């Protein structure tokens, strides 16, 4: 009798949890396949190697930035500055190259400035107790402004080949940018899922006060995620500048929306404590497919913006419905 009583809830509890979990990830994969099949059947240009390459390249930029955004969102924060930081770090790397700074140094300049801007957000969020939404919104404007100030609004171009290869070159049959992105996803996936730091990120997002009382260094954890996000935006800036062989102050406008959408579609919760790098990868690919499909189908650019917004709205709606269900 006693054993029957304990075994029933066990099966139910365990079964339900794993089904909803599987359902979440399954939904993403099914969505991804459905969009691919639809595009393959209706658009002859979709399944060409040139098109797939372009999806991968476009997804590299969103992907690298979305990885940083995943860390931030899992802590329950948000970083709206990443698009502007991509532009600012791109032009800073460009200025360095035009001043004949060696290529590796220019790359470090780009990534380092990104990390600094993340550090600024981290300082405001942890020491000044400011809201990440507002701080990163301010940095969005400041970084964009700086990008115009340092370039006088001009486009920088003609970078050394070694630099351009990062964004546009190939290593064997594979685009270098896609390989770098893959590497970023692998490392980030291991860090978030398998390290002490990753566990701290989840705990801070799951219940900040409980994490603090359990002895987790909440401030340090928050600071690191914003620095990661900034540094990866810097890497994104370098890759974008290399791919285009130019750096523009108006680059990557609205990129943060694509990145946040990818993270949320990938199953992360804007309330914190939930999300994964694998989910974000799937989310990035779905965003890449949608953007590519809209281009192939010759949808008016005005509608593209609208549809991207609607996709984000839908993803956040699902997140907030889930949250409500979890609470009740």
């Amino acid at each position, binding site marked *: 009798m006693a054993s029957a009583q304990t075994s029933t809830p066990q099966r139910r509890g365990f079964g339900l*949890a794993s089904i909803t979990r599987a359902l979440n990830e399954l939904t993403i994969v099914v969505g991804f396949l459905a969009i691919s099949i639809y595009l393959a059947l209706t658009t002859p240009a979709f399944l060409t190697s040139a098109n797939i390459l372009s999806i991968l390249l476009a997804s590299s930029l969103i992907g690298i930035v979305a990885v940083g955004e995943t860390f931030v969102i899992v802590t329950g924060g948000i970083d709206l500055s990443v698009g502007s930081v991509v532009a600012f770090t791109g032009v800073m790397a460009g200025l360095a190259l035009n001043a004949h700074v060696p290529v590796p140094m220019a790359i470090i300049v780009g990534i380092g400035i990104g990390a600094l801007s993340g550090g600024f957000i981290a300082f405001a969020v942890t020491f000044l107790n400011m809201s990440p939404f507002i701080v990163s919104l301010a940095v969005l404007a400041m970084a964009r402004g700086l990008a115009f100030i340092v370039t006088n609004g001009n486009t920088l171009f003609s970078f050394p080949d070694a630099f351009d290869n990062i964004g546009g070159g190939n290593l064997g049959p594979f685009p270098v940018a896609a390989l770098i992105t893959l590497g970023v996803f692998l490392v980030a996936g291991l860090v978030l899922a398998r390290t*002490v730091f990753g*566990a*701290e990120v*989840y*705990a801070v997002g799951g219940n900040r006060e409980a994490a*603090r009382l*359990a002895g987790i260094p909440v401030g340090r954890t928050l600071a690191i995620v914003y620095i990661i996000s900034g540094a990866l935006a810097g890497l994104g800036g370098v890759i974008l500048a290399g791919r285009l062989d130019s750096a523009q102050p108006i680059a990557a406008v609205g990129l943060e929306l694509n990145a946040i959408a990818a993270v949320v579609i990938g199953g992360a919760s804007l309330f914190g404590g939930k999300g994964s790098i694998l989910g974000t990868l799937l989310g990035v690919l779905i965003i890449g497919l949608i953007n590519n499909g809209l281009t192939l189908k010759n949808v008016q650019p005005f509608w593209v913006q609208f549809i991207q917004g609607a996709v984000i709205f839908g993803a956040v709606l699902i997140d907030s419905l889930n949250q409500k269900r979890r609470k009740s």
Partner: protein
Amino acid sequence: MANLLEMQAISKGFPGVKALSDVSISLDKGEVLGIVGENGAGKSTLMKILAGVFPPDAGKMQLEGAPFAPHRPRDALDAGIIVIHQELSLVPDRSVAENIFLGNLPRGALGAVRRAQLNRQAKTLLERVGLAVSPQARVRHLGIAQQQLVEIARALSRSARVIVMDEPTATLTTAEQRILFATIEALRDAGVGLVFISHHLEEVFEICNRVTVLRDGMAVETRSVGDWTEASLIQAMVNRPIDALFPERHAVVGDILLEVEGLAAPGAFSDVSFAVRAGEVVGLGGLIGAGRTEVLKTIYGALASSGGRVRVGTRDARIRSPRDAIAAGLAFVPEDRKGEGLVMPFPIRSNLALSTLGKLSWFRSILAPKRIDRLADKTVAELRIRTPNTRQVVQSLSGGNQQKVVLGRALTTHPRVFLLDEPTRGIDVGAKVEVYRLINALAEQGSAILVVSSDMIELLGICDRILVMRAGRLAGALPRSEFSQERVMQLAALG
């Protein structure tokens, strides 16, 4: 003659608790009824039913002879029943007049607020409550007592018939209290019925006509104020059979492990000094708001102290964060399990691992899942946490098992000093006994334990010594030989 308000045979249960059973009270016009009782006796629940926050499970109410069954707070307001809570509900940056008529502003054509009329009416009401401030003054610039008078003026603007004041004097100075009492008397003489809830018995004796005692969700007794004495009132509040809940302990008391000297935290408590020895269980008693939780959190580094020293063992501990506290050998179990103890949507094993992630990994950086599983399995077995496996999310556990997860995590850091805040709140009797056994076992192993509890029977049952706090200070210390509910209550309520 029909009473102004009758609450008859009111019962109310919440999942797992019977908050009120068969409580009847009545209130006349021009009367102040005092309601007293320990924390959790059911005072707030009763007043929430009156205010229409939730309906009773059984029982009925009558207002001037007519049935009264509010479905929502608005119904109670419209019937002239006003509850003034401890936390005031004013809008600090609007004027006094606007606050008085909030939700009820006089409007002219096109919905524009009629300023002149508003200020004129507000002035009349302010005169009635004896508050000499301009109707145009910002509420932010008023003192707490003045803000309370504004709340009362607001009550009058809705032509209140019944005014309930929940702990109105908790944050007042003596002078402010005098103003408030004068206003209460004026309202009483004008025929309003008032309910006065307070832990401060001397005030109850001063202002109330009759006093009802609630205990464990039941109305024990109502007498007119002259028929009560402080002693009989305290006796009525705490008199309960002591269950054979508390296992015996055979701990040997050793050296001082925790010593606190002149500790203070701004706005919460000051000049708190005491020591806890190895093998000793020391209780921290007092009423809610007396500063008990704050003392624990300040020792633990979760709140900033404004002075004083904490010594753990023989060493001065410089504790600036919970992380420092854990390193110094302290453990803390917070009263709010869901908000501060656990990450609710996470599995048991993740929650248990939170404080020792460094040890449960290679090179303090890469998680070692097998070590986490071993720790989780061991803790679940030791504390007999009832769960099919350690991957269950803690949300799905019962309150008692959730509390064991919090306690289990506290054990993982091998602390010598335990700070336990309401360790048995909201858990069933069986789990309570297990928590008591654990406390005893820890004491027998030579730990020092400081425990806060609002359950007086529990404090008397498990402690070697009880420190009682009142209004942010230690009001006294009782050794086991002087333990009695009356003594604790006297120190807590009278100082």
